């Protein structure tokens, strides 16, 4: 029953978008209740669909669109867990926003845009073909652009919105190129009769893609997957297209929580997971200049995880710390797909998606807590905060839970062979599995670099998040601002998310079992590395937790006990500190050098010069123009100003033309 009406998952928020946009002004709280009701509807349908199709069903619906393309719905395990997460988190954030945005006069626009965003994001998830996926993907990008620039009168917000759109656009063009290449390759194998599409199926559907993947030339397939990955790098803020995400914090905090933490930025990871059979089908050895697609995914992810974490250490804007943390955690998800994908096959999708969803809960929670603090303090700067624990207990405690989850705190009883369950936060379960996957990859492939990056990043994660927490909530207040706890409409979503951040991890085994089956249901085989069972030593099993606790202790020592005064150890002129604070000079490189200097000042301006001075000035005006003008001077002498003369000359000319043509073509 729910499966049949699953189109409503997308259509309800679309309807809410239209209504809120036009009627929002007249309704309570800018029409907030419309999107809340619609998204609640989407959540209920998603949940109902899940219950219907669990454990091994799917929903598939498809309608022809244009030129052999289609629009369709595919709800498989991978999609349904995402649908439930996105609609649920979006619902909570919409409720929270009623309080957070209470004093903003542009509420109808806010709620309309977040509602459209939710619709587009849900459409990304349940697309059954790559074109609809891409279209929805672009629409979430549009909503992100609009919401980052929500306060468009702020020049920094307008600039950040533009940067977000353009940087992700680089990835989108790669993604589009991948689709072009895929379409052409499938068409060619159809033309050679090696492959055919059954009636009712369409060329860019995922199932067609997966079937065709085996027949496409391996070099082309690798290229296609890498182009897709290029799109994912842009959307999920992976190196080197990561710079837009921290700038995106110019938008309202609820937007950061919804779009730039829990949902849209994970679309890149989802894309790789969704097209995972193609990644796995690429040749796994580096031969004849063909790179290993999964290896690239793993290294980009691992490097980003580490690279972003270093910048998270020095940021003073509470939201920017969280933004770098998001970039870093998305790196972990990519790392999981790349490393575990190479050795564990389809399990990698489960591992990555589990972290994606756990991260959505605790990162949305972190952002909403940050929003609560910002709402209370009126500033983003953690140097002006401090001592808020007593004044904002709910926010402080829920944020502590989220921080523990991010740091991956827990205890691996079962991992050490004890007959009891592992106990820990959601992040403990999800991140441990990734690090373990990277380790197994290292053992099998003899390449420990991804594992090393993951472990170091875990240490840095724990340090930066507890630096944030200690500086915000403990110690003495560092400014005169008067803080107060946020209203219930804001704190209740915090508590609900905190419960998920604490308990979601326990669903790990069931989650893996369910999501791993995803590609089996689609009759896609994914090779698994066959080898001895993997039993790391206890110290290795404990290592992620050890670095997590170590990070907390370091932060406690520095930022709570003040045992070390960082300003004495590292001067503000320290080159490494400056490098990190200036974000490796990426904003300067992207905006000033590539954007303004190279593109505008050099290429565009020289084009302008060619156009005006050479094509128009030299060729048209001087050479052609002057010649015509001099001819005209000659002719002017013939100008008598008498109409009869003109008429006779015209007739004469016409006669001459006809005679000439007669001579040329002979008798007429």
């Amino acid at each position: 029953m729910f499966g049949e009406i699953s189109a409503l998952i997308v259509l309800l928020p679309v309807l809410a978008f239209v209504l809120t946009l036009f009627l929002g002004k007249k309704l309570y709280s800018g029409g907030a209740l419309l999107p809340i009701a619609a998204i609640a509807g989407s959540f209920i349908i998603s949940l109902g669909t899940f219950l219907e199709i669990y454990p091994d069903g799917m929903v598939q619906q498809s309608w022809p669109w244009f030129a052999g393309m289609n629009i369709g719905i595919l709800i498989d395990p991978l999609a349904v867990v995402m649908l439930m997460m996105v609609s649920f988190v979006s619902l909570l954030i919409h409720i929270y926003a009623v309080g957070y945005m209470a004093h903003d006069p542009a509420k109808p626009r806010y709620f309309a845009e977040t509602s459209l965003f939710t619709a587009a994001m849900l459409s990304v998830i349940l697309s059954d073909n790559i074109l609809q996926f891409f279209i929805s993907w672009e629409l979430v990008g549009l909503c992100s652009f609009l919401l980052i620039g929500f306060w468009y009168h702020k020049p920094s917000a307008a600039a950040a919105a533009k940067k977000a759109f353009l940087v992700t656009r680089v990835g989108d063009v790669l993604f589009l190129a991948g689709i072009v290449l895929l379409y052409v390759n499938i068409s060619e194998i159809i033309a050679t009769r090696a492959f055919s599409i059954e009636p009712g199926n369409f060329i860019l559907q995922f199932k067609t893609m997966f079937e065709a993947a085996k027949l496409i030339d391996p070099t082309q397939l690798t290229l296609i997957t890498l182009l897709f990955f290029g799109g994912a790098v842009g959307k999920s803020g992976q190196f080197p297209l990561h710079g837009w995400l921290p700038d995106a914090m110019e938008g309202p905090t609820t937007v950061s929580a919804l779009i730039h933490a829990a949902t849209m930025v994970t679309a890149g990871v989802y894309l790789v997971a969704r097209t995972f059979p193609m990644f796995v089908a690429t040749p796994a050895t580096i031969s004849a200049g063909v790179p290993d697609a999964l290896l690239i995914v793993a290294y980009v992810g691992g490097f980003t995880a580490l690279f972003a974490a270093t910048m998270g250490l020095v940021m003073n804007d509470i939201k920017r710390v969280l933004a770098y943390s998001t970039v870093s955690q998305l790196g972990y998800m990519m790392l999981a797909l790349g490393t575990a994908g190479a050795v564990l096959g389809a399990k990698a999708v489960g591992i990555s998606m589990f972290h994606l969803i756990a991260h959505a809960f605790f990162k949305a929670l972190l952002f909403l807590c940050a929003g609560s603090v910002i709402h209370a303090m009126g500033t983003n700067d953690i140097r002006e905060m401090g001592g808020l624990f007593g004044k904002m207990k709910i926010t402080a405690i829920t944020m502590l839970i989220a921080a523990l989850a991010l740091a991956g705190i827990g205890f691996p009883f079962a991992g050490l062979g004890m007959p009891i369950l592992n106990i820990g936060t959601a992040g403990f379960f999800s991140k441990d599995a990734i690090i373990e996957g990277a380790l197994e990859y290292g053992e099998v492939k003899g390449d420990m670099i991804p594992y090393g990056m993951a472990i170091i990043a875990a240490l840095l994660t724990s340090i930066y998040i507890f630096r944030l927490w200690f500086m915000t909530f403990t110690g003495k207040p560092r400014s005169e601002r008067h803080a107060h706890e946020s209203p219930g409409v804001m704190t209740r979503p915090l508590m609900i998310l905190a419960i998920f951040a604490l308990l979601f991890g326990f669903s790990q085994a069931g989650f893996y079992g369910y999501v791993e089956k995803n590609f089996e249901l689609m009759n896609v085989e994914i090779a698994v590395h066959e080898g001895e069972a993997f039993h790391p030593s206890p110290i290795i099993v404990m290592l992620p937790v050890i670095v997590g606790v170590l990070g907390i202790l370091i932060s406690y020592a520095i930022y709570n006990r003040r045992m070390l005064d960082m300003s004495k150890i590292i001067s503000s002129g320290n080159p490494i500190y400056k490098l990190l604070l200036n974000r490796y000079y990426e904003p300067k490189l992207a905006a000033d050098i590539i954007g303004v200097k190279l593109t505008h000042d050099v290429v565009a301006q020289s084009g302008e010069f060619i156009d005006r001075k050479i094509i128009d000035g030299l060729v048209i005006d001087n050479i052609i123009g002057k010649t015509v003008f001099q001819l005209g001077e000659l002719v002017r002498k013939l100008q008598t100003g008498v109409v009869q003369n003109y008429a006779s000359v015209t007739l004469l000319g016409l006669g001459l033309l006809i005679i000439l043509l007669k001579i040329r073509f002979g008798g007429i």
Partner: protein
Amino acid sequence: MAALISLMILISLIGAIITFLTRTREQARVVALLASGISFVISLFMFLRFDSSIPTIQFAESYPWIGSLGISLKFGVDGIGMPLVLLSNIVIPLTVIFAWGETKQANQFYGLILLELVGVVGVFTSLDFFVFYIFWEIVLIPMYFLISIWGGPRKDYSAIKFFIYTHVASLVMLLAIFSLYFNAWQISGTPNFDMFYLLKNYSVIESTMLKDAIFLALLFGFLVKMPAVPFHTWLPDAHVEAPTAGSVILAALLLKMGGYGLFRVILPLLPFSGSPGKLVIVMAIIGVLSILYGTFLALAQRDLKKMVAYSSISHMGYVTLGAAAIVPLSISGAMYQQFSHGLITCVLFMSCGVIQHSTGTRVIGNLGGIAKYMPKLTFLMLAGFLASLGLPGMSGFIAEFLVLVNSYFTLPNFVILALFGIVFTAGYHLWAMQRAMFGTYNEKLGHIHDGANYEMFSMAVIILLVIYFGLNPNPVLTMMTTNSEQLYTVLKGVVIP
């Protein structure tokens, strides 16, 4: 049923004459709206009655005219012409509504707009090459006056440049038409200006040189009109000085005549020209050059309207590229790009017009933060800009997607180059929006007001159409594809080196 096309042309023509004769601007605009509105209803009726499954000419009419020279009044539409007839009839009434507040010599102003409708519908429906050429030239004259009377400070220079440039191109084209005509006359012994007849007889010309000369002359005539780089420099000047209504018609309809020529004349001749493979490469180079060059030039502009003008060059490059790729769906995509760009560009030029009217300037650097006082305009303009940069869900995406995907079969390297331009296309659109509309309000602009309701209405209608045709391209795309598949039956023999 019969004679719908000539009825449409006659109504616009009579409407234009009556408009010229009216005494007040109120009368003039009502008559203009009425005439173009009736014309729109006829075109919509035709569109709905059109059979998309056959590639033949529909609503055909034929009247003898100058029998001794084989000239007759033949009209009709197929999947190539029908969408453009509809487009013309959508754009002209909305332009009249947009320009509802015109005060200067209003009767002539609205009359000239209606004459443009006569001209473009004539071009898109004429099946007699001589009559086609007459309409082709008719289009120039009202535009010349629209620029030279209602234009900006350098209107005389621009109007003359526009006229001479496109007129020279027309004359070159005329020579080619005459060559086709006399050639066919020589073979059959009877004069006949029928367009399909002349095109069919192209293949029997013996001299390869003459064939190439005719082909290149026709191609030149159409490429100047589109305009394609490097024959484009008349366009930015014409737009900068033209009144908003003139710019809208110029970009939305007049440029489409060039693209129409590619499908109607150039592609059927291509397989029989002396060296089709090389000519395809020439067209592909011109197409991609236009895309990239237009994009980078748009990026360099300080004047918002000039930026939009260069964006037209870039978008029309897709038409040339898609036509050059000679794959059925790339040709359909190119046709769809014509239709789509015709709609989208209206919103862009209308936005420029509203901004200039309200603030007195179009220089991007002198604007800033005007979204604060012009929220309605900003909303519609942003929608238009997003459509123009190829946002999915809007018509431009469908067109560009079809062109890029299908051109890759025959011209992969050119497609890669074109893809490269997409980021920069987004770049200049958003950069202009950011600096002109967003950020802190530039207090030097003083008190400004939002666009008038009739202006906002026209823009909103077009945005809705852009979204509709972005979500449901089939009503237009199906008839285009029927004809592009028919074109392909002769084009598939062409080998691209």
